[in-house]
Structure formats: structure tokens, C-alpha cells
């Protein structure tokens, strides 16, 4: 009787618990989605920043070409019925079955003029394919959303998915309570919000979901040892490889964890099943993605660094050796085993030394010891600033400051150590993995601010574990001490098997003196319930044992209540901070700027104004030169060919543009003319105080240009080690193209030429442009567009032999200028 009731009671409780957790998960999904919508509400549904514009353009190509295919296919049917037109047939054959072939084989000639860019081989297709298929599904359900809308809202949808994946992952590590906690934390963590607001259509939006989901499937395979989950794990890893360059984190973390398990004696056959199929399938699948290609098996470009250099291959071999060792151990008798071991070890040592010697010779022969620049800068943070200025110039690649940790993960910063301790009690494969994950991600986040994004999910998982354990202890303390509520013996079963811990929190510091209350009445009740199922009794005995042996630590009632209240308050602070960060700090689309002044809200829409002008007032084939930051936006919104863009794959090309911006007018004209440039675009923030303008970026133009063309020397532009634009500036600086294009006619604004960003008056105020003419300046002077003046047909006076585009024409032109009164270009 009692068993039936208890049975029904527990199943009812389980059912209610399940319903509750599903409902909570739904709420978490809605929360994750809606907290990212601030920019859509404050501004409009627009794509942010720079990189997302490129992704948007790629998605358009993917979808539009497939739409054209559909149209043509239907046309072909009609045409073939009536005309059997050869043209239609040929077109149909040319455009193949769906737009994906167009996308895969697309060669982009609108950027990096005159080099172009192979899109199929240099882009991570995961994001665009995901958005494309999402659009296709919605359209087939007759929900006609535009491509831009789908692109804008992809990131919030996938962050909801990422929250659910975090729930699954943490559930595998510690249980449902920790899972729900971690999911709620991830839905709101500002670091992830910063890269996945509505409108931030970038790789990380999808990639973080893929990362967490891959880790979940790996842990699940580790826990269950099922080959089915191993297959799913490999497929999810494939999705991650498609999405982001950060897949190298996965393929290095998992082998490290396997190595850790082997070294700490936790080798089991489940480990083998979790790892070996992943390596084989994962390597194959990764090689399928064109961007990765053979880098999946080789670390660098030359074939000499063979397969074995890659960490996951080495661990693959190691795990086979270990498996073989265990296998043989099971077969042979101990004495035979010892003999076999000594034999194998001695032979193996000799072979190992030979192989290591060969590999060392190969590696030493390569200049960078086989590593690429970006990964080297991860290991040695000062490497990039010394050798590769273009990596050093990107603000995302700088090391983070201490306040940015508190800004990005807030409260989690001090819950993480508590979580680490909770993972050790007890230590399982899954919890050791999570600890390894957080240790490595903390190191890498300290090197590059962009990698805070990889650190955030780990922080959420561990904080979820810590909070859940803390709530566990407190609620149990309250339950044990509330009068009349003594039937708690079986409620503790599913929780106490994970161990009772006392979390050293700042809040709990006052309650460190925890007394061990052995509840005699609770203990007496358990043996009295004799008619239970055997399993339940066994569990009870085990839980009693754990409770007695592990000395159930129950805190005083008042302390528990206050602690719970304080923890809830902590959560409230976190939520408030996250909402504030999402609303104020991370929702700026950066293509539209706002500011509040005494007469209300000002909106600065200058960028779009300039791109629209370019789109409507220039020829389709005109080339526009600007600094590489604006390349993606120019191709996407103005639809004009650019010289350099955000992909920054060709340093020499960027250095050419940088040199042109740093040179005097004539030399710059020569350089731009050789690149067929028609228009030059500069961003200038001096009138309104926009500090990310090109004059502030000028030092990078000089450095990158000087890195390739030695006649640009940085000290020429510095006065007392500083870049200045006022009267103290050097003459090279005042004559450079960037200075002239930024400050042309600037003195007409207020009569004094006061630059609001640099907070000085400019040095050279009245000058004329000889080789460029101003064609457009936006409303707030933020974007200025100039046209290259064409060469005159006849040159007055003595004819000169035309000089080719050599940069050393400055001396010749000064000679010419001295001889003639009038400048031939003006």
C-alpha cells in the first residue's frame, strides 16, 4: 500500500518535474531570443557592423541563384513544350540543379580588384547555408520573409538553441537542476550577446551553438558508450567545421581530454568508442569543407610536416596503443605480460627516437616551425605586435583588460571557481572534461578578446553547477529542519548520490562553521519502511551510507534562508547587468549612430547616405578605394568594386592602399591610377566627434604600408613619438593624402578648423587639392568621397616624356612645378 502510494507519488513528482523543466526551457528560449532584440526595437531591422554584410551578400547569391534556377526550370518546362528553345535548354544546363553549385564555384570579381577572391574556397559556408535553408523552409511554408529579415534573426534563434544545448550538456555532467541553471545563465551572458544580437549575422552566432552541441554529444557518447551518439558527434563536428575557424579548438581539446583520461588511469572502452570514430569520421568530414581542405590532417602548407604532427592523430595512435595494452593484459599471464612489455618498450624506444629525429629535422627546416602566424600569436601574445602588424591592428585580437571580464561574464567570474570544486566531488569523465575546457578557454581568452566568446559557455556551465549545488545544500538544510517535513528520505536519493558539498562562496563565508546534525528521527524512519522494492532499499541503504559516511552537512535554518535570498539577489544583479549590457553596450549597429544632446536625439545615418550616393551616382564598373574596414559594406550596399576588404588576405594589396593614403597627392594619384580606381572614400569624424575615423586609423596605414614599401618610414609622421595633425605636425603628415582628403575645406565649417576628436585646431587649414576633386560629403561630414582627376590631354609648355607609375616622381614633379607657373593638373 505504502509502496503503491509512494510509487505513484514519485512518478507524479517526476511528471510534474518534467513538465516544469520543459516549460522552463521554453521560457529560457524566449528569453534568449528577446534579449537580443534591442537594436531592432531601438533602430531598425538592419544588419550590423562589417563582416555581416559580406555574409549577407553571399546568402543573397545562394538564394537568388537558386530562385533563378526555379524560375528557369519552370520556364524550361513551358518553353520546351512550345518552342523546344535551344537557349532555354542551355541555360538550364548551365545553372544546374540548385543554387549551391553557383555558390560553391563563385569567383568574386567585385573585391580585391584586380585580384578577385575565390569565395567557394575561402568562406566558411555553415552560416549562409543555415540561413539559406531557413529561408527556403519558411518560404515553402508560405511565410514570405525577406532574406534580410531571415539574416537578421538567425542569430537570436540560434542563441536559443545554444541555451538548450547548454542544458543538455550540463545535464550530462551534473543533472537537470544544474542544466536549467546553466541554460538560463547562457541565455543572458553579455559576452555571447555581443556577437549574436539581432543583426549581427556573423559566423559565431551559429558556431557557438555547434560548439556546445558537439561537446554535448561527445560527453553523451562518453557516458553511454553508444556508437549512435558517436556518429551524431562526428556530424555535429562537421557542422562546426563548416561554420567557424574555431573548430580547431574542438579538435585539440578532445584529444587533450582523452590524453588526460588515459594518464589519470580512467581509460575505458567507452573512451575508445567516443574518440576513435570521431577522429576518422571527423577528419574525413572536415576535409570535405573547401576552406579547410587538407589542413585537417596537416598543420601547415608543406607536405613535409606529415600526418603525425597533428595532435589528434598522435592521440589516435596513443589510444590504440593503450587499448592494445589493456587487451593483451587480459589475455596473457602477468609474467608473460612483463616480458612482452619490456620487449615492446625497448623496440619502441628505438623507433621513437628515430622518428623524433626525422620530425625535428623537418620542423626545424621550416621558418616558423610549422605554425601559422595566427596560432603562433595565440601561444606567444607578443608575436603579432612584433612581426605581423595587420593582425595586431584588429581590435578584436588584442588581449582583454580586466574590466572586460567583469563586463562580459559578470557574476560568473567568481562562481566559476566554486563550480570547479563542485566538479571534483565526485570526478567523472564528463566533469574532468568541463574542467579542462574552462582552463584552456580561460588561457585563450586572456590572449585575444575575441575568444572570450569561447570562454562564456564554459563559465555558464560551471556557474550553473555551482549555483545548483549551493541551492541543493540550502534547500536540503531547510527541509531537514522544518518541523513536520520529515519524509525527505527518498527525495534526497537522486540528489545525494552526487555528493554533499559545502561551497565556499563569498556569501557563505559567514556560515563556515557548519555543524553535523545527524537527524536521528529521519534515520529511524527509513528502516521502518520495510515493504519496499529491493532496488529502492538498496538505494536507500546506499544513500544512508553516503549520508552517514560523508557526514551530511546541514546548515542552520536562518543561515540557509538568508543564503538563498542572497543567491537570488545575486541572480537579480546578473540579470539587471545583462539586460543593461544588451541594451546599451552591445546593440549598436555601428552603421547608424545616435547621440543624445540638449535638443533631443540625433541620428547619424551618414554611412548609408554615402553608399546610396555611390550606388546612384557612379557607373557600375567604377572602382572605389578606401581602407579595408569598409570593403564589405561598400560591396554589399553600394554594389561597387573595391580594392581591399575586411577579409585581409593579401597584405601587400592592403599595404599598397596604405602607402597611397600616406603619400603626397601626386604619388597617391599614380598608385590609384595604376589600380584603375575612380573614387576614394574616407571616413572623417572630426566634425561630430566620431572617434573611429580614418585619421585615428592612420597609424596602421603607415605601419602596414611601411612593412612592405620601405620608403614609408613611420618616424617621418611622428612628432615626439606621437601622431599629430595640428600645427606641430610634420610636413610629411600634413602633405599626406589622408590628411588632405579628411580636412579639405574643413576650415569653412567654423572658421578655425577645430577637430572634435583630436581636440585641436588643424595644422594646414587652407589648401587646394590638385589631383582629386571632392564629389560628395555627407550631412555630418562623416564620409567624404573624392574622384580622381583625369590626366589632361595636352600639357602646356614643353612636353615631357610621360613617366610610368613610379613612386619616385615627387622630385620630378617638384622640379616641374618650379619651372612652370601653372600646375598642369589644376
Amino acid at each position: 500500500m505504502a509502496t503503491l502510494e509512494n510509487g505513484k507519488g514519485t512518478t507524479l513528482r517526476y511528471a510534474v518535474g518534467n513538465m516544469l523543466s520543459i516549460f522552463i526551457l521554453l521560457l529560457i528560449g524566449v528569453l534568449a531570443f528577446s534579449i537580443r532584440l534591442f537594436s531592432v526595437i531601438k533602430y531598425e531591422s538592419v544588419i550590423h557592423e562589417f563582416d555581416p554584410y559580406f555574409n549577407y551578400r553571399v546568402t543573397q547569391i545562394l538564394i537568388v541563384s537558386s530562385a533563378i534556377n526555379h524560375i528557369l526550370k519552370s520556364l524550361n518546362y513551358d518553353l520546351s513544350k512550345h518552342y523546344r528553345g535551344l537557349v532555354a535548354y542551355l541555360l538550364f544546363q548551365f545553372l544546374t540543379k540548385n543554387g549551391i553549385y553557383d555558390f560553391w564555384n563563385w569567383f568574386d570579381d567585385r573585391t580585391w580588384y584586380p585580384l578577385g577572391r575565390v569565395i567557394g574556397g575561402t568562406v566558411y559556408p555553415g552560416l549562409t547555408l543555415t540561413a539559406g535553408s531557413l529561408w527556403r523552409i519558411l518560404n515553402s511554408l508560405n511565410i514570405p520573409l525577406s532574406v534580410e529579415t531571415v539574416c537578421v534573426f538567425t542569430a537570436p534563434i540560434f542563441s536559443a538553441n545554444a541555451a538548450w544545448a547548454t542544458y543538455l550538456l550540463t545535464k550530462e555532467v551534473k543533472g537537470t537542476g544544474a542544466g536549467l541553471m546553466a541554460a538560463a545563465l547562457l541565455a543572458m551572458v553579455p559576452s555571447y550577446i555581443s556577437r549574436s544580437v539581432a543583426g549581427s549575422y556573423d559566423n559565431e552566432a551559429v558556431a557557438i551553438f555547434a560548439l556546445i552541441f558537439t561537446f554535448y554529444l561527445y560527453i553523451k557518447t562518453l557516458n553511454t558508450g553508444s556508437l549512435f551518439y558517436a556518429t551524431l558527434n562526428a556530424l555535429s563536428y562537421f557542422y562546426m567545421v563548416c561554420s567557424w575557424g574555431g573548430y580547431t579548438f574542438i579538435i585539440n581539446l578532445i584529444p587533450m581530454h582523452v590524453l588526460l583520461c588515459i594518464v589519470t588511469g580512467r581509460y575505458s572502452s567507452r573512451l575508445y568508442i567516443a574518440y576513435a570514430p570521431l577522429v576518422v569520421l571527423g577528419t574525413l568530414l572536415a576535409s570535405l569543407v573547401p576552406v579547410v581542405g587538407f589542413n585537417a590532417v596537416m598543420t601547415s602548407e608543406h607536405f613535409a610536416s606529415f600526418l603525425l604532427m597533428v595532435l589528434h592523430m598522435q592521440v589516435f595512435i596513443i589510444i590504440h596503443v593503450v587499448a592494445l595494452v589493456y587487451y593483451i593484459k587480459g589475455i596473457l599471464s602477468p609474467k608473460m605480460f612483463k616480458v612482452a612489455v619490456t620487449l615492446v618498450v625497448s623496440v619502441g624506444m628505438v623507433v621513437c627516437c628515430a622518428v623524433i629525429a626525422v620530425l625535428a629535422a623537418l620542423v626545424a627546416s621550416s621558418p616558423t616551425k610549422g605554425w601559422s602566424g595566427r596560432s603562433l600569436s595565440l601561444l606567444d601574445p607578443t608575436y603579432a605586435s612584433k612581426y605581423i602588424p595587420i593582425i595586431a591592428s584588429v581590435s578584436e585580437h588584442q588581449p582583454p583588460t580586466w574590466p572586460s571580464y567583469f563586463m562580459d561574464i559578470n557574476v560568473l567570474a567568481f562562481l566559476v571557481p566554486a563550480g570547479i570544486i563542485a566538479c571534483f566531488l565526485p570526478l567523472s569523465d564528463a566533469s574532468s572534461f568541463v574542467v579542462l575546457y574552462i582552463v584552456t578557454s580561460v588561457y585563450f581568452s586572456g590572449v585575444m578578446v575575441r575568444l572570450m566568446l569561447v570562454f562564456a559557455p564554459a563559465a555558464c556551465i560551471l556557474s550553473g553547477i555551482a549555483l545548483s549545488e549551493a541551492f541543493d545544500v540550502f534547500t536540503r538544510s531547510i527541509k531537514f529542519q522544518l518541523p513536520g517535513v520529515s519524509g525527505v528520505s527518498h527525495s534526497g536519493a537522486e540528489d545525494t548520490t552526487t555528493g554533499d558539498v559545502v561551497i565556499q562562496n563569498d556569501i557563505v563565508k559567514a556560515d563556515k562553521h557548519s555543524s553535523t546534525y545527524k537527524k536521528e528521527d529521519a534515520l529511524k524512519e527509513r528502516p521502518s519502511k520495510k515493504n519496499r522494492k529491493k532496488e529502492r532499499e538498496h538505494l536507500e541503504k546506499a544513500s544512508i551510507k553516503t549520508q552517514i559516511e560523508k557526514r551530511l552537512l546541514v546548515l542552520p535554518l536562518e543561515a540557509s534562508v538568508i543564503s538563498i535570498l542572497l543567491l537570488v539577489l545575486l541572480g537579480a544583479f546578473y540579470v539587471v547587468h545583462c539586460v543593461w549590457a544588451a541594451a546599451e553596450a552591445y546593440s549598436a549597429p555601428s552603421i547608424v549612430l545616435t547621440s543624445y544632446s540638449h535638443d533631443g536625439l540625433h541620428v547619424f545615418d551618414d554611412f548609408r547616405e554615402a553608399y546610396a550616393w555611390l550606388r546612384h551616382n557612379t557607373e557600375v564598373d567604377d572602382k572605389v578605394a578606401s581602407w579595408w574596414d569598409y570593403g564589405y559594406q561598400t560591396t554589399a550596399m553600394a554594389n561597387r568594386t573595391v580594392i581591399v576588404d575586411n577579409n585581409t588576405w593579401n597584405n601587400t594589396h592592403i599595404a599598397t592602399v596604405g602607402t597611397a593614403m600616406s603619400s603626397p597627392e601626386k604619388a597617391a594619384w599614380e598608385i590609384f591610377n595604376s589600380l584603375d580606381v575612380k573614387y576614394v572614400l574616407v571616413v572623417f569624424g572630426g566634425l561630430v566627434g566620431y572617434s573611429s575615423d580614418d585619421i585615428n586609423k592612420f597609424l596602421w596605414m603607415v605601419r602596414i604600408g611601411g612593412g612592405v614599401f620601405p620608403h614609408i618610414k613611420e618616424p617621418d609622421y611622428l612628432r615626439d613619438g606621437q601622431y599629430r595633425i595640428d600645427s606641430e605636425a610634420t610636413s610629411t603628415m600634413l602633405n599626406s593624402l589622408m590628411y588632405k582628403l579628411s580636412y579639405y575645406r574643413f576650415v569653412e565649417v567654423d572658421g578655425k578648423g577645430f577637430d572634435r576628436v583630436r581636440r585641436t585646431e588643424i595644422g594646414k587649414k587652407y589648401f587646394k587639392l590638385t589631383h582629386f576633386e571632392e564629389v560628395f560629403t555627407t550631412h555630418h561630414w562623416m564620409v567624404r568621397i573624392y574622384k580622381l582627376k583625369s590626366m589632361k590631354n595636352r600639357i602646356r609648355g614643353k612636353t615631357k616624356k610621360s613617366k610610368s607609375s613610379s613612386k619616385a616622381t615627387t622630385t620630378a614633379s617638384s622640379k616641374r612645378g618650379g619651372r612652370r607657373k601653372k600646375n598642369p593638373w589644376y
Partner: protein
Amino acid sequence: MQDSNKPYETKVIVGGGEKVQQWSVYLIAVVVYMAIVGSFPFNSFLSGVLSCVGTAVLAICLRIQVNKENKEFKDLPPERAFADFVLCNLVLHLVIMNFLG
């Protein structure tokens, strides 16, 4: 399908080892061929190597799961293990055929 399970269950240690040896021979053959002819279509070489390695690994996994002496898998029905094995092989060979070029 039921019959092929029996040998795996009964000839626990000895029976499956032959299959793995067979694939190791294939693997060596592929590598030797590559050393002779050169690795130009590197993707073909990779897919050849990885298909041998992959099927060997999966066979080992299946044997681990079906092994009666393995305490961790005592409540995994061998049919389920075989089904997983088939699925994984299917995915592996699909990818290999795609990658073969």
C-alpha cells in the same frame, strides 16, 4: 542478420581479430601504392587510408560493445550495437565516396 551476430558473441576475442588484420593489410597496400605512384590526388589517398582505418575502428567498437565479458555494456542488446555499427559505416562510406573525387 541474426546469424552473423552469433559468431561475434561466441568467438569473442579470436574471431574479430581476423577482420582487423585484413584491413591492416589493405591499409599497408594503399600506403605502399601511394609511395610508389605519388600522392597527387591527395584526397583519394586520404579517403583510401581513412576508409581502411575507419572500418577497422568501427569493427573494434562493435566487438567491444558485443563482448559479453565487458561489464559496461551488459544491458546493450547486440542488435542495437549492430544497428549502430551499420549506421556509422553508412555515414563513413557516404563521405568517402564523396571525397574520393
